[in-house]
Structures are given as structure tokens and as C-alpha cells.
């Protein structure tokens, strides 16, 4: 084998060898924790915004931006990149924080979130921040967009494309009819390179999803629309990574990963509480921690990994 083609071969092997080492997992854990701290800091600075969803998705976003995605933060227009469509735009603090930590823009810029003139609009706007793949906020439209991207790619490259089209969705937004239009359509088109990730955290603004509008049995519903469905613990890097690998290997169907997550994950007094869906630290429920202490307490918890390490911050 000639050296050049051997190198190409190695690169290809590397492409498929996405296994997570112990070291890598540790690295991701630390990164996810830093990203959670950034989320809290930017929400404190903004004084409004969503807390629970971004914290709950921090592990998955970290795994994607630091391990799974083909992307180039220094050249966001790189044609060969995978595409990420964030459908539930309100969890954008986690998207912004992860993008900043992976080098798309400075971490310092995160504190401009939701402020006048900021590129980090309250809900993502691609005209302000071109590194985004789309603008979102009104729920339920992301999957159609990712589907459109995958369809366009298939027209150009038939089935030889090595790009993947990921759509992150909330579970509450599955109430939207448009989601099911896209679910039906993707099943028809058998788009193998379309991968949906549902943040199954069981809460939405008015309460628990199963009270507001029951979604179960979600898995069966999606399977009946001809999707390959995987279910994972959304805080277990290996499980999520394996699921994405499996989804990539499925060739005749789109795949969806139902990621069970804990809303508010990482901050004890926020976890699993619906009232933390749409409030920032300082404006959340104060039966456990007073409003004025919420920001400080959240950061202290994250810096000490929920009290597991004692540090100078205590």
C-alpha cells in the first residue's frame, strides 16, 4: 500500500473508531462541568432565560462538540461539516456555551447573552451569529429543517454522503403537529443520515409532560413511523456515544435517540423541578434556596461537583 493511501486508510479507520477511552470520558466530564458553570454565569448576567434544559443537555452537547461532530470551529462554513439543528431554541445557553468552549467565539462573549447588540440573541438567530445552522425558538420546526438539509444532501450525493444531520429537540415540543409531519416524512424518505435527539426530561412550562399532554409510549409511536429508536441515559457518555454510533450504522431508516435526562442536572436544588424550566438563577422557586443565593449556590455546587470535592470555593 502506498503511503498516501495508507494514511487515508488510517484516517478512515479513525473515523469509525469513535470509542471513548477512560481518559476521554474524564476529559468530557470536566468540560461538561465547565460548560454548566458558564451556563449559570451567563444566565445570572442575563437576568432571564431557561436553566433546567441547558443544564440537562450539557453532557450531550459536550459529547457532540468535543467528540462526535465533524466540525471546524475556526471555519464554521466548512462544507464537509455535520449539521446541528437546535429545534428547541430556548435551551440555547447550552449551545452558546458549548460553542464558545469549543472555540467558535470567546468564552467572555457568553456574558452578552440576551443583551442589546449581542450576537447571542435570547433565542438563536443565524443572521446575528452565522456559525449557527438556523434560527429557532418557535417550537416544532427543527426536524423539518434537518430533514430538508438531509434531502438536499441526498440529491447531491445520493447515498454516498458522509455527513450527518442532527436535530436536537425537547420532549415538550413533540406536542407540535409539525414534528409529526416531519417524523412521517423522514420515515417515508428513509433518510439514514438524519439523527434526532430528544431531550426526554419530562418537564415543560406548565408541568410534567405526561400531565400536560402525554407522549408515551413515545418509542412505539416513533417506531411505527419507520424510525430506528434508541433509548439512553443522557448523562452517560458511553451510552450516548454508542447510540450515535449505532444510529450512524443504520442504513435504511432515520434514527432517533430518546435521551433520558435530568432537568437542572448538576445543581441539586434545581434538578427535576419544572419551575426551573424558564427561570434563571435568582428568579427560581425559593423554597429550598433563597433567590439571592441561587446563583452563588449553583456555581459552588458545580465547582465542587455537588459536594464531592471540597475546595477553596467552599
Amino acid at each position, binding site marked *: 500500500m502506498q503511503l498516501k493511501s495508507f494514511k487515508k486508510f488510517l484516517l478512515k479507520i479513525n473515523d469509525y473508531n469513535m470509542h471513548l477511552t477512560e481518559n476521554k470520558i474524564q476529559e468530557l466530564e470536566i468540560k461538561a462541568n465547565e460548560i454548566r458553570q458558564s451556563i449559570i454565569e451567563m444566565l445570572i448576567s442575563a437576568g432571564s432565560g431557561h436553566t433546567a434544559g441547558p443544564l440537562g443537555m450539557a453532557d450531550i452537547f459536550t459529547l457532540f462538540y468535543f467528540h462526535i461532530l465533524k466540525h471546524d470551529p475556526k471555519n464554521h462554513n466548512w462544507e464537509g461539516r455535520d449539521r446541528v439543528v437546535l429545534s428547541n431554541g430556548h435551551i440555547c445557553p447550552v449551545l452558546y456555551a458549548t460553542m464558545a468552549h469549543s472555540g467558535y467565539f470567546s468564552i467572555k462573549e457568553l456574558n452578552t447573552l440576551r443583551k442589546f447588540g449581542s450576537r447571542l440573541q435570547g433565542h438563536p438567530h443565524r*443572521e446575528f451569529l452565522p456559525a449557527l445552522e438556523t*434560527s429557532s425558538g418557535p417550537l416544532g*420546526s427543527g426536524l*423539518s429543517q434537518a430533514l*430538508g*438539509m438531509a*434531502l438536499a444532501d441526498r440529491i447531491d450525493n445520493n447515498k454516498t454522503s458522509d455527513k450527518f444531520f442532527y436535530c436536537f429537540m425537547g420532549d415538550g415540543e413533540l406536542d407540535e403537529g409539525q414534528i409529526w*409531519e*416531519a417524523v412521517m416524512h423522514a420515515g417515508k424518505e428513509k433518510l439514514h443520515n438524519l439523527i434526532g435527539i430528544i431531550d426526554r426530561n419530562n418537564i415543560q412550562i406548565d408541568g410534567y409532560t405526561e400531565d400536560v399532554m402525554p407522549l408515551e409510549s413515545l418509542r412505539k409511536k416513533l417506531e411505527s413511523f419507520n424510525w430506528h429508536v434508541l433509548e439512553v441515559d443522557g448523562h452517560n457518555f458511553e451510552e450516548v456515544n454508542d447510540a450515535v454510533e449505532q444510529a450512524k450504522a443504520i442504513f435504511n431508516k432515520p434514527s432517533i435517540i430518546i435521551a433520558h435526562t435530568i432537568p437542572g442536572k448538576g445543581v441539586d436544588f434545581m434538578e427535576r423541578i419544572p419551575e426551573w424550566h424558564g427561570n434563571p438563577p435568582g428568579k427560581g422557586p425559593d423554597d429550598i434556596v433563597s433567590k439571592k443565593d441561587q446563583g452563588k449556590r449553583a456555581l459552588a455546587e458545580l465547582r465542587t461537583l455537588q459536594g464531592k470535592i471540597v475546595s477553596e470555593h467552599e
Partner: protein
Amino acid sequence: MQLNPKLFDRDVEQIPIRQGFGEGLLEVARVDERIVGLCCDLTGSTKMNLFAEAFPNRFTQMGIAEQSMASTASGMAAMGKIPFISSYAMFSPGRNWEQIRTTICYNNSNVKIVGSHSGVSVGPDGGTHQAIEDIAITRVIPNMTVISPCDAIEARKATIAATTMFGPVYIRLAREKTPVITSENTAFDIGKASIVFRNEGDADVGVIACGALVYNAIMAAKELESEGVKVRVMNLATIKPLDEEAILKLAKETGKIVTVEEHQIAGGMGSAVAEFLAENMPIKMRFIGVRDKFGQSGTPEELISHYDMDVESIKSSIRDIRM
């Protein structure tokens, strides 16, 4: 301005405006591979079938899902395609307005929205299917261009022209056969209005019309000649952006403007003209269009007359404003 030489003949050709779209799309798709088509189970009705049959790989059958169609097109545009989405205007941009606003216009996405079956001339189907609000809801969205061609030839040119500019465009079509006003040699540019009828010398009244009713406006002007009323008729094919220069010129020349459209008066083309003139040259105006009513079943002629958009109604408005 070279119009159809048979414009004033009894046997002037009658072609549905939507036919022009179908032919234009096919024509431009042959030379531009980026063009893709999406339709919601109305491929024959919107005349997208011509494209779909010629380019099956570039056509996406959405099923009856207008909301997803708008966003899917936005996704395709993000990958460099020029998507045309078509349905009845009532459903797209009617049903899927928010998806058009957020996923297409807010992204300044290069999607062309084609709404067929606009106006009450849809006829027997009744009010549910007669879109008379679509100009209002599209022109209000930033980044959007709005075009209402007056005949099939102009619709063909508008379809081709829409692909030469970047950004969202709404093209308004109609179902019924309508007289061919323009000719192959008539100039068409997005954003440019044109005078389609003028008498010798000065004019008393300016009429600004769009869509199929440009024909009625021309007929009204022609018939008023015998009464000594001099009318200049403008075809305002592009409603947004407005050809401000041309409108201002007509307003200065005539001092009185009547607008004519098959649409609600609230928020339509006439409103756009009034918004501009109120700030720049307030003059007397009259509006021909639907006055805060829904459509209903009937023949196109019956309905156009019932809602006071026929030649006689236009003539009365012109006489009235001339006083």
C-alpha cells in the same frame, strides 16, 4: 411597453396565471440545477407537475403538510438549493405563516413561496379556499419580496426572475383562465412597475392594479375614454419592494389614485401604496378590493361583481374620485 396586440379584442387569449408559473419553473430548472420543488398534494393544481415530471429527483412530495414544507425548504436552502414550495395560497402562506416567518424569512433563506388559487375568482370552492389575505401576511414580513403577476406570461417571467435574486419571494397566482395582457416582449423586472394604459396628454386619475384585475382596470380606463375621462393604469406587479419612484410620478401626474386588487383592502397592495403616499405625497385615494368580508361560492364573474371589483365598479370609483 409592448403589450399583447390582441388585448382589446373579444377573443384575447385566456390562460391561467398558474400555468405561467409551471412553465417558468420548468424552463429555469433546466438551466439551474440548484432548483428543487416541494408540493403538498396539489402538484397538478399548482402546475408544479411540469417540473415534477421532468425532474423527479429534485421534487419532494410533502403530503398535506404545509408547515413542514416551509421548514423543509428552509433546510434545503441552507444546503445551497433554491426551493420552490407550492400549494393553495390559503394553506401556504396561510396555514404555515409562522414557519415562513421564522424558518424562511428570519433566516433570510432563499426559498420561493408560490401560492396558487388566490382571490375570490377561485369560484365554486367557496370562501374557505379563497385567499384574500395573503398579500397582507407576506408583505408584513421583513426580507420578503411579494409579486402578484397580472397574467401567465408575467408569471413565467416572475418565476424565472425570482431565482436570480437571493432571499424569500412570494409569488401570488390565480386559478382561472385570465386574459393575456403582456407579451413576450414586455419588460419584467422585480421591483419595477409599468404603465399599461395611457391616453394622449395629461391624465385625470391614476389606477394602480395588480394580478388578474389589471385587465379590468385597463378595460375600465378604455371605456372611460368615451366619457372624456383620462386614466393612466399602472401594473404594480411587485408589491414589495414598492417602486416608489414610479408611484410618486403617477401621483404627481394625476393627483388622484385608485388601487385595484383581488384582496382585502386592509393590508393589501392598496394599503402599501397608501402607506407610501401618506408620508410622501398625501392625495385622494379610492380602494377597489374586498371590504372586510369572506368569499363564497359562485362563478368568478358573479363574485368579482358581488365584491365590487368588476369593470363597472372600477369605473364608478374613478368617476367618483375625479369629482
